[in-house]
């Protein structure tokens, strides 16, 4: 691509998502996470380790902030100074939000992270040079860097443990950034199967590993383009729009509406593909 071509046709190559004139065609993968159902049990996180060949880094590296949990549970307490947290804790499954206008994408000097046609924020490991700009620019802090070559690090995957590695997923080497992919290997397989049969992927045909494990079914995943999909219905009911122009319907009303769907850091206009449903607490007790 010549520079002049790129500059002349800038809008074609650097397409700001989401835009009305160029909607997603077949697929737009999205999620809804119900914080009222989530119990904070960590099953999703372990499922992610199993599915995506995440290394266990050990205490010392964890302390240095080098843990590799693509899916983590954040736990918050109330800030109101009460003696006891008598309405429990707040759990928050945090994973890559697959932003439509991802802040990480624009800063990558080598184009290693970019947007796919079905709305994923992809990471090309082979292209990554490890500048870590993307991680610095991620508002959700969900990008994880390989500070070490884990396959050759002691006690990460010793002996037989290598046999558990998922052959559908690369084992990343030193100096590469990685993050949640919405289990792209599962998506690709489902899409391939569907294409072979001349159809689109059915709703529910593909699950992410975290969704599949979740004991309370707090995670809904699917194709937002398909209006009958569970996830699209949830987004529609909560009136959360992927490409909300200014504010979401919920936030337009004074004091909020009686809906509970929201996206984190909506104000940054990264347009995340993960909608959260507020945790509910009974007022009668």
């Amino acid at each position, binding site marked *: 691509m010549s520079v002049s071509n790129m500059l002349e046709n800038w809008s074609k190559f650097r397409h700001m998502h989401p835009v009305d004139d160029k909607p997603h065609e077949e697929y737009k993968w999205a999620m809804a996470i119900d914080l009222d159902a989530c*119990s*904070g049990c960590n099953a999703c*996180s372990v499922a992610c380790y199993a599915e995506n060949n995440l290394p266990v880094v050990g205490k010392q590296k964890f302390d240095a902030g080098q843990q590799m949990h693509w899916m983590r549970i954040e736990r918050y*307490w109330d*800030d109101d100074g009460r003696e006891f947290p008598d309405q429990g804790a707040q759990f928050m499954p945090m994973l890559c939000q697959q932003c439509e206008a991802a802040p990480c994408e624009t800063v990558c000097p080598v184009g290693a992270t970019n947007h796919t046609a079905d709305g994923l924020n992809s990471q090309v490991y082979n292209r990554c040079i490890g500048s870590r700009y993307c991680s610095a620019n991620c508002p959700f802090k969900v990008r994880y860097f390989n500070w070490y070559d884990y396959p050759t690090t002691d006690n990460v995957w010793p002996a037989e443990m290598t046999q558990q590695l998922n052959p559908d997923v690369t084992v990343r080497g030193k100096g590469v950034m990685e993050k949640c992919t919405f289990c792209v290997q599962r998506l690709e397989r489902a899409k391939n199967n569907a294409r072979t049969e001349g159809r689109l992927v059915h709703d529910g045909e593909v699950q992410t590993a975290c969704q599949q494990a979740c*004991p309370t079914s707090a995670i809904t995943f699917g194709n937002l383009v398909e209006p009958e999909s569970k996830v699209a219905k949830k987004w529609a009911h909560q009136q959360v729009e992927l490409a909300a122009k200014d504010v979401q319907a919920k936030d337009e009303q004074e004091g909020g509406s009686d809906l509970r769907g929201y996206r984190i850091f909506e104000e940054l206009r990264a347009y995340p593909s993960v909608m959260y449903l507020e945790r509910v607490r*009974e007022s*009668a007790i």
Partner: protein
Amino acid sequence: MIENSFNRRDFLKVLGWGGTAVALSGCGNTSIQDGVETVVSYVEPPEYAIPGISVYFNSTCAQCDAGCNITGRLREGRVLKLEGNPNSVINHGKLCGLGQAGVQAHYNPDRVREPLLRNGDKGEVIAWDKALGLINEKLSGVKGDEIAFLTGGLSGHVKVLLNNYLEALGSKNHYAYEAVSPSVVRAANKKAYGVEMPRLRLDKAKVVVSFGADFLGAWVSPVNFSQQYAKFRKADENGRGVLVQIESKMTLTGANADRWIVIRPGTEGILALGIVNALGASGVSLPADVAAVSKAYSSERVSKDTGVPAEQIEKLAALLKERSPSLVITGSAAEGYAHGSQNAAAIALLNRVLGNIGKTIEAPANVPFPQVAVTTGNRSSVQALNDSLANGKIKVLFSYGTNPVFTAPTALKFKENLGKVPFKIAFAHYLDETSREADLVLPLDSALEDWGTSVPEYLGEASQLSIQQPLMEKLHPNTKGLGDILLALLKQRREKEYKDYEDFYSYLRSAVVKNKSALGGSGEDDDTFWTNTLSNGIVPFSASSNNLSAKSSAAGLVLPPPADENSGYPLHLIPSVTASLRDGRHANQPWLQESPDPLTTIVWDSWVELHPKTAAKLGIVEGDIVEVTSRSGSVKAQAYLFPGIHPDAVSIPLGNGHVALGRWAKDVGVNAFGILDQVVDKETGELALNETRVKISKTGKRVFIVKDEGAVGGSQAGVKIAVRVSTDDVELSGEV
């Protein structure tokens, strides 16, 4: 799926050996690297084996007693991942983190690979036939009652063989020991409802009041309860369910409650009677025996004893009266005292008064074959065994699936008494603290390599036999299945009876197929029935359900006053059972160690939870290494300031502090089992886990706690990240 022309025997081999055929032609990494084996493509590939395409086999999770049904994903003969079996009535396709870590139990590099015979401090490799011969030799001349078998909770056909073996030896000494089982609750349930483990219908309840039952984390059957909980929380025709959790130390379930009520340790029964009394005062009719017991428990008095505000008690009573049916659950927090049985009995009265029995507390399904039903483990059995050991009554001890040297209270001197047994045989996956003491260690197949059946204690919607089958070829050639070893031992005694069974697989097949008409297979030929059984991984029992018999009287129920101030040991120690580490047997699975504790977010260590108020009084800040001393011992660990705990209590999680068990468990954290006082529940004789009193002192050292929560320690710092909304401000009814 199967063509008629396909040779049935081959097909059975395929399914029956759970992927062995694939494994044979798959790549054992090391042997290829060593040049022992070469990669040869299929000349005639098995019909179902397409390189790059996964196959799935059903089996049963062995990580905890809930016994969830699992589906293993295999590629080229290696098991990669475990999922829940969607057809299970227990876990409905879901699986917790502990269950998923089952692959790490299987691939663990620290597994025992050869039979080991003690020679001084060392274990020397010995051949299997010699090992089995040695057992026979050591048993000769030993009387039946000098032989004992120590296991954890046990069910299925392995239990049948074990009982037969004990019978053949003339021994009745089967001790089933589980360090953190709900054993007092079982006894109390038996009295109150007529069954030890009724079916709990969270999904039907409008209000759930749990006295310290961590049913979303580590209690009984967490995946089943979690799914019910999700339904309970949905705003369906019952409305959104309300969860109230009452405990002294916040559990995962407590962290999910609409109202978490902190209570003075040990006064749970008093609060229960206070609620009963408040219900009576608000017009709920109380049976005469209940009224007689509860009338002394006015809200003011109860509030004084428990530390729960009187208006909170009345509010809770009003909620329970208004929203029926409700469900009241007794958990380990309430049972862990010398008066644990009375606590549990008082709490069970609430269900009686509220009319929940038969509505949200239902009879479990019958298990029509009692010989395979579960023998649940408890804590008193290890005390009984310990007495026999101390008296030198036991000459030969078999142990399997439990680790009393690690978990039994120090006061029992279990390890010392174990040394008095002349010959100890351990069936082991790893060299843990108990099997390390054995004279002969027999290496077991992993749960993903072995055959078996199980019947869980908590049955869920229906009773069933869960099938455990090998998901792949054995990793190590010299391990054996427990069933196979027991069968070999039985053949030493009852050759005639068992000679037709070549191995445990053939025994199992024959035992299941023999009963096919009772197992829904009447009309099917044996092979078809067996094939379907393995393919489903589940055999439903056709069984009627029991009736609950709620006959217990409240008369005679006496609760002790709250525990006195104890100046020497001012704090209550509440050892916490976490969802991933439980009693510590899985501490060598690195996913579980690196999985942050949900409440503190701490990894790879133990900690001491203190209320910030208590910590301030003692001048302790986060990361201080503190010494926690009880009458039975002391441990040193990092202090963590935790708002979800009673100021008179401290909590240390169980499960870490191993001195053996492999590279990921050894020397991680401290063992809180070691400082528990030997105090038992007066009625059942079960060790009272929360009765230990402790004092705390600073050691002067301080560390940075390795944890996942950020620098602001769980505050959202005014940013809208995880949002909570009151039921008043949200419309849930139309939600999809």
